[in-house]
């Protein structure tokens, strides 16, 4: 059975800190790994990772995938209170594009 494990489940930091969110997975027929940010409304897409070792960056956020060790990390530098959200790691794999969701990491950034 496909599995996605995120850690930590929750994290409290101060503005300006750098955080690293972890996602490990098990899947048959890996297709891609996605990161989403969810605030009060619907999740918003952050990154899609398909290849190992290639870092994706968007502003202060970056992510990388290790397909050999089966994990991905999401880094956020110089955190701001607006980064407070649940970060979801989602795995796409299997024969019919099934998505497996992690439980998310709740990040709280205090001023």
């Amino acid at each position, binding site marked *: 059975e496909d599995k996605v494990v995120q850690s930590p489940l929750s994290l409290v930091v101060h503005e300006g800190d750098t955080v690293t969110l972890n996602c490990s997975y098990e899947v048959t027929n890996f297709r891609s790994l*996605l990161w989403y940010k969810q605030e009060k*409304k619907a*999740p918003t897409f952050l990154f899609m990772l398909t290849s190992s070792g290639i870092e994706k960056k968007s502003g202060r956020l970056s992510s990388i995938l290790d397909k050999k060790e089966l994990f991905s990390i999401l880094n956020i530098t110089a955190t701001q209170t607006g980064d407070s959200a649940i970060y979801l790691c989602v795995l796409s794999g299997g024969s019919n594009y099934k998505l497996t969701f992690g439980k998310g990491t709740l990040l709280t950034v205090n001023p």
Partner: protein
Amino acid sequence: DTAVSQTPKYLVTQMGNDKSIKCEQNLGHDTMYWYKQDSKKFLKIMFSYNNKELIINETVPNRFSPKSPDKAHLNLHINSLELGDSAVYFCASSQVWTSPPDTQYFGPGTRLTVL
């Protein structure tokens, strides 16, 4: 301008009632999804349709029935509502067969409260 829209945004109803949630996307995508987000914020896929055909049907009570009249619409009908059905339901769409294949765009969600 809205890419993925859902109606209604809020739905409060009594146990035992039948209700529908509508979803429409104007992105020209081939695939649409329904997700349920429980009280712990865990997002779980329920159904996926590709070109109006059901391709993912997770373990969901058969009181839930998706209907896709065309590629741009995927509605969710729920019969005999139960207290445990209270949740936020998200619709999403993606162009699965092109690159990037798995990017999904979400609607704003429908908060269903069953009393």
